């Protein structure tokens, strides 16, 4: 029963590390652009500052607007606590189903979009409509790429899938490569990174995520920002879980946990490094090209599914 | 040198020589000479094959039996008469500024290379080489179709190239699939594509793979045969190219594609032991017959009119080969011969008619008989022959085909008759005013060379009245070859 505190610690770790991870991406990008950058802890400092500030509400803001940040944050944290980071088998592992995970994120997105439209400004509505359009394409693609993986494990439960990956000998599987490519593309889109959305600008014509939270301030804004940082770390962890879980431990033993922690941190920061490189070298897509980008991700995931049946099943 | 090598190499050498000859007049003569030599050698070849039954040449790479040797002779003959026809015809085109000396060189050279590709395809004993030669013949004719460099001719050539390229790619895929299954029987070398060996082992080939392969081959080579619905390139390519090219496309190239299809069908039948492949061919044939018969009525351009008639007849032959009985194959072979003769003859006539009237539009061609009796009668008689009136050979072969259909699939007879009737009315309705009617005022006198036309029509007439014993024996042998295939496999 000592695993329950471990489970909580793991979720806390993910939630607390998320702003650092976001800071890491910002710093690496700054370095790549020959700037000094704000440092790893800047997101934390921002959050602290925002929590201290007074909330300014628009006149016609309804309860949904005030309610949304809490729902978004809670849903995201719940999703984060489902995802195994260090321990494969946790008390919550029964709930660690990818479909449940996707729907938790969908719930968060739903409220985010509602909040965007609630104030009635042009930007909020525009952002919400774009977000929903993209997510309608991104979610099937995400599920499709997860299905590719679950075909081998015969389950969509994350714990089972990780155990399956850990227990089978390493071999070249084209379907996994397809699924990974699709997953990376979706992760970029879901987190509003370049080339789909640019998290650092507020450009009217193109912003998606920023447009929806434009009216927020104080602790509401802090929660929204934090939630999106957690989502980034969450996706990184999900990719690690699904494609490279090596290093995770099955049961709670101290040495193994330490090793798992080191492995996880290394892998997370490796992925984030790749993300910052990609963001530096890629140009943002024009808005109408994003659906194409997402349908490409879907196609790739589907190809993964087909090639699984074609190349791997009958061998 | 053996007659076989002479037959095959003359066009190849001729192609290279003609590429270097500047003077169009001399080039035309060399062209004719090469045609005559090829035809003479092919006759000698036919005689020697008739004596021994079948023969391998050049270490088994080539193979001749009753089926292909008669097609070789036919190809060489039509090639020769086309070369004779093209001399004065092309001089007229140069005089009217539609051609220049450089393009004449290209024309002559490509004409011979096309002939080489055709003969190589007919004689090759390797289905891979067969594919290569068909592609070679196609590539040679693409440049010929766009020879006039008018917008429409370039567009037609492009369409021809892209559609046939696509078709031929599918055919290659089918060939690869055959190799896929045969390499497990015959080993991983040329043997696995050698037709004679494949034929011996056809019952050991995997039926499922062969059937899938046949579907690809059917669509692929079917595009080249001009079967509906893949026929879109054919009327354009025939309509826009120079007339000698239309004549050889219609009279010869389509035959080669159909020949390839029939050869491969023999393999597939041997492997599957059923006549599914035949049924597929029959449906394509019937569809082409109908599409062409009804399209005939909508034409405005005289060359397009007769190219649709080619689609109709290729459909008939495909249908006949599809039935696959001895009688039907006999009819198909006879039909192939008379169609090649009559259709190329008609195209010669049409070419002269268009030159005389200065247009290919049928509304502009009127009263040929009064103005140019030779051309007018040639066109009328040719049309009557191709429409299937007795006593021409087309009637005989169609009659035989109908008889064979009655035996095998009686109910399709009605469809066949209907299609033939529609096609016949379509042709006569347009040709009647062109032949009779009031002559157009702006007609010009042209030097015509109707000799090839009369020779072709006379031959067709002769085949309608009586088939000489040696020819009938040939058809009989060839039909027996085609038919016996599935029996061996069973």
């Amino acid at each position: 029963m000592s695993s329950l505190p471990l489970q909580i610690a793991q979720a806390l770790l993910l939630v607390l590390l998320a702003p650092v991870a976001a800071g890491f991406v910002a710093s690496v990008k700054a370095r790549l652009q020959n700037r000094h950058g704000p440092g790893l802890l800047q997101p934390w400092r921002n959050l602290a500052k925002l929590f201290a500030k007074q909330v300014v509400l628009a006149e016609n803001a309804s309860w949904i607007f005030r309610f949304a940040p809490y729902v978004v944050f809670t849903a995201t944290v719940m999703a984060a606590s489902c995802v195994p980071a260090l321990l494969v088998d946790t008390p919550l592992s029964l709930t660690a189903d990818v479909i449940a995970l996707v729907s938790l994120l969908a719930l968060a997105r739903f409220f985010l979009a509602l909040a965007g439209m609630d104030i009635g400004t042009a930007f909020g509505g525009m952002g919400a409509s774009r977000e929903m359009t993209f997510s309608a394409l991104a979610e099937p693609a995400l599920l499709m790429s997860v299905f590719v993986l679950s075909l081998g494990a015969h389950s969509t439960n994350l714990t089972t899938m990780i155990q399956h990956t850990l227990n089978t000998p390493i071999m070249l599987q084209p379907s996994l490569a397809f699924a990974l490519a699709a997953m990376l593309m979706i992760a970029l889109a879901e987190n509003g990174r370049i080339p789909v959305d640019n998290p650092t600008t507020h450009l009217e014509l193109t912003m998606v995520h920023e447009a929806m939270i434009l009216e927020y301030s104080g602790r509401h804004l802090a929660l929204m920002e934090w939630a999106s940082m957690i989502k980034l770390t969450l996706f990184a962890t999900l990719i690690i879980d699904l494609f490279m879980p090596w290093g995770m431990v099955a049961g709670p033993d101290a040495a193994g946990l330490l090793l798992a922690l080191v492995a996880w941190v290394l892998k997370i920061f490796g992925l984030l490094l790749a993300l910052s490189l990609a963001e530096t070298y890629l140009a943002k897509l024009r808005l109408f090209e994003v659906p194409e980008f997402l349908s490409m991700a879907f196609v790739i995931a589907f190809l993964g599914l087909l090639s699984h049946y074609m190349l791997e099943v009958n061998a | 040198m053996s007659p076989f090598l002479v037959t095959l190499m003359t066009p190849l050498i001729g192609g290279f020589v003609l590429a270097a000859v500047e003077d169009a007049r001399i080039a035309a003569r060399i062209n004719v000479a090469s045609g005559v030599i090829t035809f003479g050698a092919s006759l000698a070849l036919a005689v020697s094959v008739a004596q021994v039954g079948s023969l391998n040449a050049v270490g088994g790479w080539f193979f001749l039996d009753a089926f292909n040797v008669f097609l070789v002779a036919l190809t060489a003959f039509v090639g020769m008469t086309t070369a004779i026809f093209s001399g004065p015809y092309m001089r007229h085109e140069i005089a009217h500024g539609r051609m220049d000396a450089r393009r004449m060189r290209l024309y002559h050279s490509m004409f011979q290379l096309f002939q080489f590709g055709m003969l190589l395809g007919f004689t090759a004993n390797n289905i891979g080489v067969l594919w290569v030669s068909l592609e070679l013949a196609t590539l040679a004719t693409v440049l010929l179709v766009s020879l006039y460099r008018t917008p429409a001719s370039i567009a037609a050539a492009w369409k021809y190239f892209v559609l046939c390229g696509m078709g031929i790619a599918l055919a290659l895929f089918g060939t690869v699939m055959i190799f896929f299954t045969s390499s497990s029987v015959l080993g991983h070398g040329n043997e696995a594509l050698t037709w004679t060996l494949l034929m011996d082992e056809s019952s050991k080939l995997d039926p499922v793979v062969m059937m899938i392969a046949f579907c690809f081959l059917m669509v692929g080579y079917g595009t080249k045969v001009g079967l509906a619905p893949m026929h879109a390139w054919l009327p354009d390519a025939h309509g826009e190219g120079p007339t000698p090219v239309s004549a050889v496309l219609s009279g010869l190239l389509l035959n080669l594609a159909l020949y390839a299809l029939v050869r491969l069908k023999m393999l597939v039948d041997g492997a599957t032991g059923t006549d599914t492949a035949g049924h597929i061919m029959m449906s394509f044939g019937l569809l082409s017959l109908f599409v062409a018969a009804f399209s005939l009525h909508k034409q405005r351009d005289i060359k397009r009119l007769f190219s649709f008639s080619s689609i109709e007849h290729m459909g008939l032959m495909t249908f006949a080969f599809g039935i696959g009985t001895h009688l039907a194959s006999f009819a198909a072979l006879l039909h192939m011969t008379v169609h090649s003769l009559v259709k190329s003859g008609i195209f010669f006539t049409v070419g002269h008619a268009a030159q005389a009237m200065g247009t290919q539009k049928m509304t502009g061609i009127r009263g040929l008989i009064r103005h140019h009796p030779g051309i007018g009668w040639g066109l009328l008689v040719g049309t009557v022959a191709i429409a299937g009136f007795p006593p021409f050979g087309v009637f005989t072969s169609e009659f035989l085909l109908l008889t064979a259909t009655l035996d095998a699939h009686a109910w399709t007879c009605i469809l066949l008759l209907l299609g033939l009737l529609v096609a016949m009315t379509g042709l006569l309705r347009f040709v009647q005013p062109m032949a009779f009617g009031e002559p157009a005022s702006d007609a010009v006198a042209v030097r015509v060379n109707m000799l090839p036309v009369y020779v072709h029509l006379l031959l067709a007439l002769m085949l309608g009245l009586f088939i000489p014993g040696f020819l009938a024996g040939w058809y009989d042998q060839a039909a027996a070859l085609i038919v016996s295939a599935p029996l061996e496999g069973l």
Partner: protein
Amino acid sequence: MNTALIQQIIDGLAALMLLVSFSLLAQHRMLSVLHWFAVQGWLLAITSAFVAYGTGHHELYVSAAMTLLLKGLLLPWLLWRVIKRLHVHREVEPLVNLTLTMLIALGITLFSFHIIQPIEKISQLLTRDSMAIATACVLLGMLMMITRRKAITQVVGFLAVENALFFAAIGSTNGMPLVVEIGIAFDVLIAALIFGLFFFQIRTTFDSLEVDAMHASLVEREEEE
């Protein structure tokens, strides 16, 4: 290397081949189309080298080298020159919009997997799995020829079909006999040259490389009285 690993590598290359075929379909700009076409050529060469190594058919090294020269370098370079010379790097608008094309392409892939399935069961070859992918690639190349308006993209589609055929020959039958292969390579080269010739003819005659313009001229020709 053991055969299992070779098999996996070839399967992986087959999957990549499929992916490249999709990428070719998804491109907007002429230069990226060309770029992916070259990638396909290289992939083919690598595949045939691996098959040669795995099966011990040494003549496949020859076709690998031929492929690399012809399809990986020469043809892309020729097309690149045509594009430079004729200034056609503008965006290519497909006839059917991209998402729909992708869906059709997926359907085609499913279809080809379906028809090839009976074959896969009976073959004992090292590379039997790639037959379905080769079929899909052939049909995808045709889709590209159908859905594009520019003459050059149609040609790239045609050459992609040829590539897929070559892949079928290499990947699923361990290579056709050398004579046939040389014949095919020769034909492709001639075809490419004729295509190049055509580009200039079309360009001078129609002042554009849009296939629509050509088609219009045929219709006009047919309708003029």
